[in-house]
């Protein structure tokens, strides 16, 4: 076989990436056409290979934490698609009981520690998750995701310093999609290559082609091995591209259609499919069967979300304190 990875791996990658893609396309339709989803909505479309490669390079016990562009990683970690769609709808059956929305998916049972809305904050919190694993003496690792915009936040530098000082088992993953909202990376710093920021802390770093699940798997795999073997953190700059705007309300006047089209030609799902076909890893029937399964899961999630109840109004004062007897001020 010409490929480094097994047929099963490719089939897994393809199904996961399609599931994330189709989930988001469906959700965007429900947002734009039917108004059933509200709030800020940041799509992962074009970045799916990063979730796919990360999953095969890690174990279920490894923890993921990310920013507000969180749908793809939540689904990858196994947060149920039904609960994801219901969360977007704001329903009680959502993965955060309708209290988080698009930016705040959670699945602690799946070791998915959320969906965080303050740019860069989860880099530090993620290092704290890793601190706890090291403290307990496990060999679990944490994947802490952030965007290129977050690379300019102070928390990144403080966290890199601490993570190297204490050799925390954390992999910092910068999903560099070239735009901090509407500001291209060239306009945010003198240092365009984000992986070089690791040099200041003598942290190992690498750049990875984020449009290729194979590259992502290999790059993350090397960093995970280092972290598991008590070698400390790694910074991975994964070059990717978001086809969609920063959020659903972004008219994208800061980039050309040609630029977007060029990246679409490198679409990670199309590339993966081509590799699978060129190497006879799947028949058209098998691909079609996966597509149909994904469609069914996504369609079911919409039905589930639409039929689910809203959270009860009494939920306003629930999940604010663990303390069940907290005397809230109500007037």
């Amino acid at each position, binding site marked *: 076989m010409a490929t480094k990875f097994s047929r099963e791996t490719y089939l897994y990658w393809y199904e996961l990436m399609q599931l994330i893609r189709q989930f988001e396309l469906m959700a965007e339709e429900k947002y734009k056409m039917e108004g059933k989803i509200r709030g800020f909505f940041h799509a992962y479309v074009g970045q799916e290979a990063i979730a796919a490669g990360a999953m095969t390079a890690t174990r279920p016990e490894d923890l993921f934490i990310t920013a507000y562009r969180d749908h793809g990683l939540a689904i990858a970690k196994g947060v149920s698609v039904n609960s994801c769609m219901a969360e977007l709808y704001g329903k009680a059956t959502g993965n955060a009981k309708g209290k988080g929305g698009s930016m705040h998916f959670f699945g602690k049972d799946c070791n998915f520690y959320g969906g965080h809305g303050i740019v860069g904050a989860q880099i530090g919190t993620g290092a704290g*998750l890793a*601190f*706890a694993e090291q403290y307990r003496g496990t060999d679990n690792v944490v994947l802490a995701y952030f965007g290129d915009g977050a690379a300019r936040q102070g928390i990144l530098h*403080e966290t890199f310093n601490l993570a190297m000082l204490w050799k925390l088992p954390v992999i910092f993953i910068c999903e560099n999609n070239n735009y901090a909202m509407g500001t291209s990376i060239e306009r945010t710093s003198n240092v365009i290559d984000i992986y070089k920021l690791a040099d200041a802390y003598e942290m190992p770093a690498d750049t990875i082609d984020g449009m290729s699940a194979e590259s992502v798997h290999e790059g993350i795999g090397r960093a995970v091995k280092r972290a598991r073997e008590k070698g400390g953190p790694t910074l991975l700059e994964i070059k990717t591209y978001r086809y969609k705007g920063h959020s659903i309300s972004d008219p994208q006047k800061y980039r050309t259609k040609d630029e977007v089209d060029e990246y679409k030609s490198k679409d990670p799902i199309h590339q993966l499919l081509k590799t699978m076909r060129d190497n006879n890893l799947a028949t058209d029937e098998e691909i079609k069967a996966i597509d149909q399964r994904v469609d069914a899961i996504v369609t079911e999630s919409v039905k589930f979300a639409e039929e689910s109840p809203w959270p009860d109004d009494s939920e306003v004062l629930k999940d604010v304190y663990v303390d069940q007897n907290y005397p809230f001020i109500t007037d």
Partner: protein
Amino acid sequence: MARSIAFREALREALSEEMRRDDRVFLMGEEVAEYNGAYKVSQGMLAEFGPKRVIDTPISELGFTAVGVGAAQNGLRPVVEFMTWNFAVLALDQILNTASKMLAMSGGQVSCPIVFRGPNGSAGQLGAQHSTAFEALYANIPGIKVVSPSNGYDAKGLLKQAIRYEEDPVMFMESEVMYGDKCEVPESEYYIELGKADVKRIGRDVTIVSFHKMMKVALGAAAELEKEGISAEVIDLRTIRPLDWMTILESVKKTNRLVIVEEQWPFASVSSEITYRIQKEGFDYLDAPIRRITAADAPLHYAPNLVNAALPDVPRTVKLVKEVMYARK
């Protein structure tokens, strides 16, 4: 058997007892380990617990606070020391946007059992950036609790409670100028529940409510007033959030007069909240407007007379009590 120990020793006992009891508890902060604590609260703890559990950090408030928050979310019970709460402002994002909100944002999945502690408020001529009292600011935030003890006995029981039993983030406010205060503390173990005020002095004519080191002003004023035949009841809030307003109300039902002494800035302060609550719940019991003394509505300046002029003191408290008593002089 009670013995007289310093406030800092009471805190150290609380930390050490809880660390001996539970391996998940650790202490992290600037100078806590090898230097034995900027104010010697953690003296000797590195020797007992080792560097895994008594952890020096670089001057990186946002970074080490984030590590503490993440560790708490992932099953540990961190105690994070700030050299002063003034520096914790750098870490406010992690406290306000992550620690306080994650339980709610995650629909109840991700809790954050963590204690943040350190000295708070003014401590003499330290200038504006080392002198802010933050109780009211943190008390505004749902999802966290705010503790502000006035003596070593309360501090030990409250800190032990916070570390062992509180599953929510606790802000624990100490004071540079109280660390040396001596206090009777029993040798046997005890805990003090959060959210309970304590009547430190029983009286009948007026209620004075205070907390933290302003309790000294409140008790000092009560002693002066007694010489003039005015019996003041003094309530120590101990916990700011949640606020034990019922204890205040019960006292006001008896005295019909309320004065609040605090070191907060006046706008939306602890006294503002108490005043709202007592006028609503106890309107018919009040024989005079509720009055207060706060810190001046300004950054705290350096000159000694300006420090004194900006902070509550016994003479002004006595004068204010007499005003609500409608006393002649």
